[in-house]
C-alpha cells in the first residue's frame, strides 16, 4: 500500500475535526474490507486515513427510545446477523448482514462501510431502505437526517460532503403484523456479490396490505425503491395475483446493465422472481405476528 498518515480518533468530535482539516484527501476506515483492497490495487490513494475502530459512539446497536432500532455506522455485519432483537423484529436486515462476505469479512465489515461505499449491489441497503431507515449524518454544522432512499446519488457516490460522516441508521419499528425478507441471487452463497438483491417489507391491517416497501440492489446505479410495485399493493389484499403483478412492476422499475455477473434481461427476470418470493415470505411473517415469529437460522 502507498504510505498514508493514520489518525486514531477516540470521539466523533475528533473525527469531524480531522475531516475539517483533511476531508478531501482523507478516507474513513472502519472494517477496511472495501477500502483496503482499493488502496492495495491503487484505485484509492488517500494521503490520510482516519480509523473509526476506537470511536465508541459509532458502535451502538439497540432499541431507539420509544420504538425502533439504532444501528451505529461501525456495527459489523456479523453483529447485525447475530443480534436477537434485529433477527426477531427486522429479519430482512439480519438476513442481509448474514450474506456479506464470509465470517472473516463479516467480523470486520460494517453497515456504514457497506452504505458509504455505495456499491449498487450493497446488500444492507435494500432492507434498510424497505424499513424506511434514516441516515444520521454529522458535519461541521451539526447533524442532519436523510432518508436512506435519498442517500445514494450514483455509483460509489452519496450525499455525504467531504467533511461529513455517517453516524448511525435509525430504523422505525415496523409495528404489529409486519414482515420482511431480503433475498439475493448469487452463483455462490459466500463471498459473492449480488447479481440482484430484493428486500420487501409489508404491514397488514384489516385484511389488506396497509404498507409495502420494496427495494432493489444491483439493477441501477444506486439501490432503488420499486414505488409503482409498492403502490399496487397498498390497500389491497395480498393475493398471489397481486404479488405477481408487483413482481412485474418491480422488474419494470429496474434499469440494469449487462456485465459478467448477468445480462440486463436476466437481472430483470430475477427482480420479478425475488420480488414475488420476498413478498410471499413477508406476508407469511407478517401473518405470524411479532410473538410467533421464528428467527432465521444462524449459520
Amino acid at each position: 500500500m502507498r504510505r498514508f498518515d493514520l489518525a486514531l480518533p477516540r470521539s466523533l468530535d475528533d473525527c469531524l475535526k480531522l475531516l475539517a482539516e483533511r476531508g478531501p484527501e482523507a478516507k474513513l476506515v472502519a472494517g477496511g474490507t472495501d477500502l483496503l483492497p482499493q488502496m492495495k490495487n491503487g484505485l484509492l490513494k488517500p494521503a490520510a486515513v482516519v480509523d473509526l475502530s476506537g470511536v465508541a459512539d459509532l458502535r451502538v446497536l439497540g432499541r431507539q427510545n420509544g420504538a425502533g432500532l439504532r444501528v451505529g455506522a461501525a456495527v459489523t455485519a456479523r453483529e447485525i446477523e447475530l443480534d436477537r432483537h434485529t433477527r426477531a423484529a427486522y429479519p430482512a436486515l439480519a438476513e442481509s448482514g448474514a450474506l456479506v462476505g464470509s465470517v472473516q469479512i463479516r467480523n470486520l465489515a460494517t453497515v456504514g462501510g457497506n452504505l458509504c461505499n455505495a456499491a449498487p449491489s450493497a446488500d444492507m441497503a435494500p432492507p434498510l431502505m424497505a424499513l424506511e431507515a434514516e441516515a444520521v449524518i454529522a458535519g461541521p454544522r451539526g447533524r442532519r437526517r436523510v432518508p436512506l432512499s435519498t442517500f445514494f446519488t450514483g455509483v460509489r457516490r452519496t450525499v455525504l460532503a467531504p467533511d461529513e460522516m455517517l453516524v448511525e441508521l435509525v430504523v422505525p419499528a415496523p409495528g404489529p403484523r409486519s414482515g420482511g425478507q431480503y433475498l439475493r441471487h448469487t452463483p455462490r452463497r459466500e463471498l459473492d456479490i449480488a447479481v440482484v438483491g430484493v428486500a420487501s417489507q409489508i404491514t397488514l391491517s384489516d385484511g389488506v396490505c396497509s404498507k409495502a416497501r420494496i427495494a432493489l440492489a444491483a439493477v441501477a446505479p444506486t439501490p432503488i425503491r420499486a414505488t409503482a410495485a409498492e403502490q399496487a399493493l397498498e390497500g389491497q389484499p395480498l393475493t398471489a395475483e397481486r404479488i405477481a403483478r408487483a413482481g412485474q412492476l418491480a422488474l419494470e422499475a429496474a434499469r440494469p446493465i449487462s456485465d459478467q455477473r448477468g445480462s440486463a434481461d436476466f437481472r430483470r427476470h430475477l427482480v420479478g422472481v425475488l420480488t414475488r418470493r420476498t413478498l410471499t415470505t413477508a406476508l407469511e411473517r407478517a401473518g405470524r405476528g411479532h410473538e410467533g415469529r421464528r428467527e432465521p437460522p444462524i449459520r
Partner: protein
Amino acid sequence: MAKQVLSFMLNDTETDVLVQPYVTLLDALREDLELTGPKEGCGTGDCGACTVHLDGKPVASCLVLALQARGRSVRTIEGLGRFGALHPLQDAFVRLGVPQCGFCIPGVIMAAAALLAENPRPTEEEIRYGIAGNLCRCTGYTKMLTAISEVAGAAPAREA
C-alpha cells in the same frame, strides 16, 4: 513518516512492536513478529489464508491495519496449541493427514477453532459455512470436514 508503537495482546503475551501506520496486521505478524503461520494468499480477504482471531473472532488479517489491533487481543495459529499440547483440531488434522500443500491450513484451523468456540456441536452444513471463507487450492475439503466433525463430536472444543 514515523513508526508507531503497537501495544496488544498477542497469543496471550503483552506485546509492543514498532510498525508503520500503513502496514496490515498480517504484515506486522509475519515481517516484524516472525509469526509466519498466517499466510498472504490473495491480500483482498477472499481466500482466508490470513485468518487470525481478533478479540476471539476470526478475521482476515490482510484487511486489518496493524494499529487497528491496538489494545486488542490477537491469536494466530502459533498461539492455538503448542508442541506436545496441540489443539484438538491440530491433532486431528495431523492424524488424519488433512494438509496437502499446507498453505491454507493455518487459516482453516483458525476458522474452525472459532466456529467450535461459538458452536461446539455444529452440523455438517454449519461446518461447511464455518470454513466457506477459506479456499484450498488442493481442494482438500473432504478431509477437513472429517477432521472438524471428529473434533466436534469427540470432545468439547477448547476456548480458542
